[in-house]
């Protein structure tokens, strides 16, 4: 068991972490280069940069957006994201691990904050899952990954909470730690290949949706020729 834990904490973590980072860089680069290419092909380079930056920030910190649509869902979703980002990065135990392995680290959250935030994150994951299952609109839209992501993400939080409160995990600490490590590693590997990739893509979204309308010159003509139509008469059925 010890060995499995060490493996999960050491080599496996490094592999999964590297896959996540490289995968996210690749995903981000695809969108970014696509964006730059589209901008260069555009005949007119006028883009409302100021508006787009404002819009992007209003979505990265979406407090003002809460009341505009599905307020309850929006609040839960925001709380969920706060817990999701802050706890793994600033938990004292994680920060210490970083310090021991790479030699540097950053400030950490007081344990009581981390604990409470973890509980809030677990509850909000549960609520999001219930929200998805109980709303007919959300059910109609959802793919498989939309259902399994909240529980999968809640698992390392739940097991992490048990591990950091020894009184709760005294009997099965090692098993719980094993689940914590392997589920967290699985999450990291999955991130670049699923919808969670939005964690790096979101800052580009407004730009993609704006520059995407900059149709390159001559597209229609080329498409027509590629499809074997000779002239506009054939094109306009």
């Amino acid at each position, binding site marked *: 068991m010890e060995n499995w834990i060490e493996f999960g904490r050491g080599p496996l973590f490094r592999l999964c972490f590297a896959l996540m980072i490289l995968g996210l860089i690749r995903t981000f680069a695809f*969108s970014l280069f696509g964006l730059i*290419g589209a901008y260069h092909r555009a005949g007119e380079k006028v883009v409302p940069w100021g508006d787009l930056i404002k819009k992007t920030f209003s979505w990265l910190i979406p407090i003002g957006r809460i009341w*505009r649509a599905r307020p309850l869902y929006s609040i839960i979703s925001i709380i969920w994201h706060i817990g999701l980002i802050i706890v793994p990065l600033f938990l004292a135990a994680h920060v210490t691990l970083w310090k021991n392995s790479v030699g540097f680290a950053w400030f950490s959250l007081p344990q009581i904050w981390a604990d409470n935030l973890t509980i809030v994150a677990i509850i909000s994951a549960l609520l999001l899952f219930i929200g998805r299952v109980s709303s007919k609109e959300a059910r109609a*839209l959802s793919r498989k990954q939309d259902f399994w992501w909240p529980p999968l993400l809640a698992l390392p939080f739940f097991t992490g909470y048990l591990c950091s409160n020894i009184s709760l995990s005294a009997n099965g600490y090692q098993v719980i730690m094993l689940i914590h490590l392997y589920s967290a590693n699985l999450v990291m590997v999955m991130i670049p*290949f699923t*919808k969670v990739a*939005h964690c790096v893509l979101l800052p580009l979204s407004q730009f993609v*949706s704006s520059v995407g309308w900059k149709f390159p010159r001559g597209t229609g003509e080329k498409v027509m020729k*590629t499809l074997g139509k000779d002239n*506009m008469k054939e094109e306009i059925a």
Partner: protein
Amino acid sequence: MKPLTTETLEKAFEIPKKPEVIEKQRLAVRYHIEDKHLVDNNRPQKFLEAMAAILKHSNYRFVLDHYIRTSAKCSRCTVQCQVYEATKDLRDIPCYRSELLLKVYRRHFTVAGTLRGRLTNDPGLTDDDIEDMARSFYDCTACRRCQNECPAGIDHGMITHLGRYILSEIGIVPRALVVSTREQLIGDSHNTSAIPVPALKDTLEFLEEEMAETKGVEVKFPLDVEGADYIFIPAVSDFLMEAETLMGNACVFHATGDSWTIGTGDFDGINYGLFYSDHVLEKVLLNMEKEVERLKIKKGIIIGECGHASRSAKFFYNNFAERFPMPVINCMEYAHDALEAGKLKFDRSIIKETVTYHDPCNIARSGWIIKQPRELIKAFIDDFVEMDKIGKDAVCCGGGGGTVSLDEIRPYRTTIGGYKKAKQITATIKEGKAHYTIGPCANCKKQLKELIEDQNIPSELVGLHDLIYRAIILSDDGVAWREPEGIF
């Protein structure tokens, strides 16, 4: 407004097409063109070929790539879509509609999708999927209101546009759109309403006489003036149906004293390409460029009261027109500039009715034309009431995305599409007082007129320039309006 009943919904979706035509088209939608391409059995393959060709030569690929990774299916767009609000049909949720095309992209144009498809024996795109898309992409009014509340920033309007473009390449396009486009691009009249130039000249002469009588001033519609500062291009339907709007435009030009002209080579701003084909979009704008070149226009293109004509010219003209780039101005923007420069004088006593303003999606969604018309209205109208959602957040009239041109779906448009708009207009009406709804867009005008008629709303639909025409003072004696003699 009463809530929609099941009976009304069913009626709105009624299919008046002959069963054998539906059978032949294999499209259970009533307004798609009957086309030779549809008879063969290879529709999915044709769709994929068209999609591949479009992705190869356009920018859509990176957009779809981005969207399949960011779409979180949060369903926040459900509360934004006026179509879904009316039908409560899950297939009308913007994100659901977009997924129809995104899943085709994921399955056939990504490595992971192709591999998964092979491993799981997934047949991929089917005929039924195409039918779903044909129905769904034309139930959407392409108003793009859903993009406002999408946390992932997905522009469902762009996906609808792309979906329609691909469908059009395999011959699935509403008949009304394709017939108009054909006349505009390869017909003799070069405009969507098939108005010959002599008829245009007659109409304008008649309007000049009318203005001389009512305004007491000689106001001209200059035709083919070489070297004019501005070329004025309204939606061609204005020449047939919106005489007061045109006269309002002419009066504003008269008041500013700028040199302007209407070109007989291209006097139609309508561009259905914005709704269904990038190719058509570009061709129509290149024709506009030719007219700008022929008339040696100096300062700019002014588009009349038409949302989609304005948007297609504003955001695409300079993108396509390489040789003669030109600023594109909407006529309300132009009138507003004139107002700010102190060139417009109004008689405030003319319009006494309550007035509300409908923001056309194509000019308001981007934030381009929102404050200009309101400042114009406030310059000569005392009783102005706003609707509950305005500006970038405005609700579509229900006939957007070209659907207003399809007369056969009028029951759909005036019940389902325009349901929310009807509620909004009704809320601004004051008891016992006459009411105007301003809809400064050729598409919105037609739709709102039909909506007002079908829903029995006690309001009259007008253009902003219709009211400007009545209240503007051009003559030295300071009279805005003289009752025309001998008409009644």
